[in-house]
C-alpha cells in the first residue's frame, strides 16, 4: 500500500497565479500588512479562471435551488448517467457492473492505496490540486481535486446560510470568512474569494506565538470583524476566552461535531446562530444540523446507509454506516464510499435527513496543568512518525494509554511527541505492535474520561 507521503506544502506561486481574475489585490495586501496582522506563514488562493468561475456560479445556482433530491424508494435522476460516466472514464470503476444496485462499497483504504485510479480520463491534469488530510481520523491521505470543486465550499456554505436567512456580503473590502484554529502549529494565510468578488478569507491561529503581540489577535479580528467564523469547538472555546468584541453573522463548526453545551455557550456569547455542519475532506460539506438530525445539502450526493460489516444496503430508518455516491470532483468521483460515520436516513419531501449521526465527537484531553489539548495536535505530532494507526486514552488521573502499530522501534519517539503536546510530566503507557497485527483500517481513535 502507498501511504501519503508527509510533505508540507511550500509557497510557489505569485498572487496573479493565485487570483487570475482579480485585478485589484490591494485589500489582500492590506490584510497581510496590517499593523496587527499575524505573522502569516503561508499564502493561498482559489486559482479560479473565467471558465472555472462560471462553473462555480452554475453549481451555486443548482445547490441553492434544488427543492427535492430524490423521492423515498427511488434514486436521484442523475445516478444512472453518473454511474455510466464513472465506468467509462475512471480506471477504478471500469470493471464495475452496470446496475447501481450491484455496486460494491469502497472505503478509505481504496483512496489511500491508489488515488490516481479515481481520476477521470476526462479530468485535465493541469488542474490537479492535492490536499493532504491531517490524519485526525485515520492515516494521512492525499485527496485530489480541482479549482472548481475546491471553490464550491463557499456556495455550499452559502446554501446553508440561506436556509437560516443569512446573507454573505460579497464586498471586496470586507472579510467574509475567517477559519479559526487554536493549535501549536498550522498554516496561516490571508486570502480572497474570487467567487465573492474579492472579499477576504483568513486562516488564523490563535496561538500567540504566531503574532507580534498576543493582544493583536483581538485587534486584528475586531478590525476586520469576519462575517462567518468557522472552526472546531476547541478553537471557538479558545476564541471565546479572549472575549473578542465581534459581531459575526454565524459561527460554523465543521471539523468536529458540536455538542449542545458548547453550542449554547457560543450562541450566548456571540449572539448569532452556531451551525454544526457535517463535512469530510473527500467531498466537503454534506449536511447541516437541524434540531437533533442533519439535513442533507447536496443534490449531487446520493446518500445510503449500509451494514457495518456486509455489503448490504439498509432500508430508511435503519442504522448503519453512511455511504456516499456522487460529488462534483472529477479527480475523485465516489461510488458507494463508506464514510466511517454512523446514522440512519429519513426522507422528508424528497430531502434526506441523517438521524443520530455519530461523527468526530470532540474528545477532550488535558495537560497536568488543566489546559485543554485538541486531538488534532496529537494527530499532527503522530504524523511525523511511521505509524500505521494508533489509539490514545486518557483516564481521570490524566494518565495516557497509547497503543500504536508500527514495524519500527518508536516507543521513545512517541513518548517524546506526547510529552511535547501534553507538556512535560504526563504519565504515559506506550505499547507498539507490528503493523500485521492491526485489524482495521481507520485506526486513529481517541477516548477520554473527560467531557467537553
Amino acid at each position, binding site marked *: 500500500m502507498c501511504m501519503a*507521503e508527509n*510533505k508540507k*506544502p*511550500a*509557497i*510557489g*506561486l505569485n498572487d496573479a497565479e*493565485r487570483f487570475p481574475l482579480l485585478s485589484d489585490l490591494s485589500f489582500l495586501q492590506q490584510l497581510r500588512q496590517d499593523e496587527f496582522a499575524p505573522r502569516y506563514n*503561508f*499564502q*493561498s*488562493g*482559489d*486559482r479560479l479562471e473565467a471558465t472555472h468561475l462560471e462553473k462555480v456560479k452554475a453549481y451555486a445556482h443548482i445547490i441553492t435551488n434544488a427543492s427535492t433530491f430524490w423521492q423515498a424508494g427511488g434514486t436521484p435522476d442523475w445516478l444512472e448517467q453518473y454511474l455510466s460516466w464513472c465506468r467509462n472514464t475512471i*480506471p477504478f470503476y471500469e470493471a464495475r457492473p452496470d446496475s447501481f444496485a450491484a455496486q460494491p462499497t469502497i472505503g478509505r483504504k481504496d483512496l489511500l492505496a491508489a*488515488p*490516481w*485510479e479515481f*481520476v477521470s*480520463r476526462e479530468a485535465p*491534469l493541469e488542474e*490537479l*490540486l*492535492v*490536499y*493532504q488530510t491531517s490524519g485526525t481520523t485515520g492515516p494521512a491521505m*492525499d485527496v*485530489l481535486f480541482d*479549482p472548481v470543486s*475546491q*471553490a464550491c*465550499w*463557499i456556495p455550499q456554505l452559502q446554501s446553508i446560510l440561506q436556509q437560516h436567512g443569512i446573507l454573505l456580503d460579497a464586498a471586496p473590502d470586507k472579510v467574509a*470568512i475567517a*477559519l479559526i*484554529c487554536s493549535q501549536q502549529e498550522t*498554516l496561516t*494565510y490571508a*486570502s480572497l474569494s474570487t467567487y465573492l468578488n474579492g472579499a477576504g*478569507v483568513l*486562516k488564523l491561529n490563535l496561538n500567540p506565538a504566531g503574532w507580534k503581540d498576543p493582544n493583536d489577535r483581538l485587534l486584528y479580528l475586531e478590525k476586520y470583524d469576519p462575517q462567518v467564523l*468557522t*472552526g*472546531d469547538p476547541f478553537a471557538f472555546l479558545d476564541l471565546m476566552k479572549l472575549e473578542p468584541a465581534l459581531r459575526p453573522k454565524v459561527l460554523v463548526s*465543521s*471539523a468536529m461535531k458540536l455538542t449542545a453545551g458548547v453550542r449554547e455557550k457560543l450562541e450566548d456569547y456571540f449572539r448569532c446562530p452556531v451551525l454544526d455542519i457535517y463535512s469530510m*475532506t473527500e467531498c466537503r460539506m454534506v449536511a447541516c444540523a437541524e434540531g437533533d438530525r442533519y439535513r442533507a445539502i447536496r443534490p449531487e450526493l446520493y446518500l445510503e446507509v449500509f451494514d457495518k460489516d456486509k455489503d448490504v444496503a439498509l432500508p430508511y430508518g435503519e442504522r448503519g454506516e453512511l455511504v456516499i455516491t456522487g460529488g462534483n470532483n472529477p479527480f475523485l468521483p465516489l461510488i458507494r464510499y463508506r464514510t466511517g460515520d454512523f446514522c440512519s436516513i429519513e426522507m422528508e419531501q424528497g430531502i434526506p435527513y441523517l438521524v443520530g449521526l455519530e461523527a468526530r465527537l470532540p474528545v477532550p484531553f488535558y495537560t497536568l496543568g488543566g489546559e485543554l489539548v485538541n486531538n488534532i495536535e496529537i494527530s499532527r505530532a503522530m504524523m511525523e512518525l511511521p505509524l500505521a494507526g494508533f489509539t490514545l486514552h486518557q483516564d481521570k488521573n490524566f494518565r495516557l494509554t497509547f497503543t500504536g502499530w508500527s514495524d519500527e522501534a518508536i516507543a521513545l519517539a512517541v513518548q517524546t511527541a506526547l510529552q511535547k503536546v501534553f507538556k512535560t510530566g504526563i504519565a504515559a503507557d506506550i505499547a507498539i505492535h507490528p503493523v500485521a497485527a492491526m485489524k482495521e483500517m481507520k485506526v486513529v481513535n481517541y477516548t477520554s474520561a473527560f467531557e467537553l
Partner: protein
Amino acid sequence: MIDIYTLFYHLKSCPEYFFHCPPLNRGVVPHTEVLLKDMYRKVHGDFSVQDAALPTLVNLWQYDENQLISMQVGCWLFHHPFFAGKPSWVTGIDFFLNDDLQALSPFVQAREWVEDEDRAEEFIRLALRKCGVIPAGETALEAADRLEALDTLKRQAVLRGSQASYDRIREIRRKMAEQKAREASNVYGRE
C-alpha cells in the same frame, strides 16, 4: 475438412524462395504477383483462367517489403492441396492477403508467421476463417475462441491501452508530487 496441425506442418515447410523479395521495378512483373497468380489459379482449379478473372493486384506497389513477403507466405499456405479447386474461396483469400495482412504486418515480421508457433496458428486460423472453414475436430465457437486468444490486433490494443493507462498514472503521480512540493491552492478553505 482439415485439421490445424496438417496446415501447421505445411506452413512450417515454407521454402526459402517464398521469402525472397526482389525490388519492384516498372516493366518487370513483381515476384509477389507471379506467386499470387500461380496460387489463385491453383485455388480456381483452372490454370487457363484469364488474369481478369483473378483478384486485381494493383495495390502491390503500395505495400512494404514485410507485407509482400507475408503475402508470399500466404501463397505457400494456399498451395496446400486442401485449397485446390475451391474458386468460391478466392475472394476470402484476397481479403486475407490484402486487408488482414496489411493490418497485421506492422506488428508481425513475415518470418514469424512461420517460425513462431502462435503466429503460425493465428495465420492459419485467420486464413481458414476467411474461407469459411472450421478446423476439423472443433466447433465454430471453439475455433472463434482459439483465434481470439491468438489475436495480434487485440493484443496490441490491450498493450496500447495498458501503456496509455500507465502513462496517465505516471503523469498523475508526477503532478501530485509537483503540487505537493509547490504551493497548490491545497489548503484554501481548509481548517
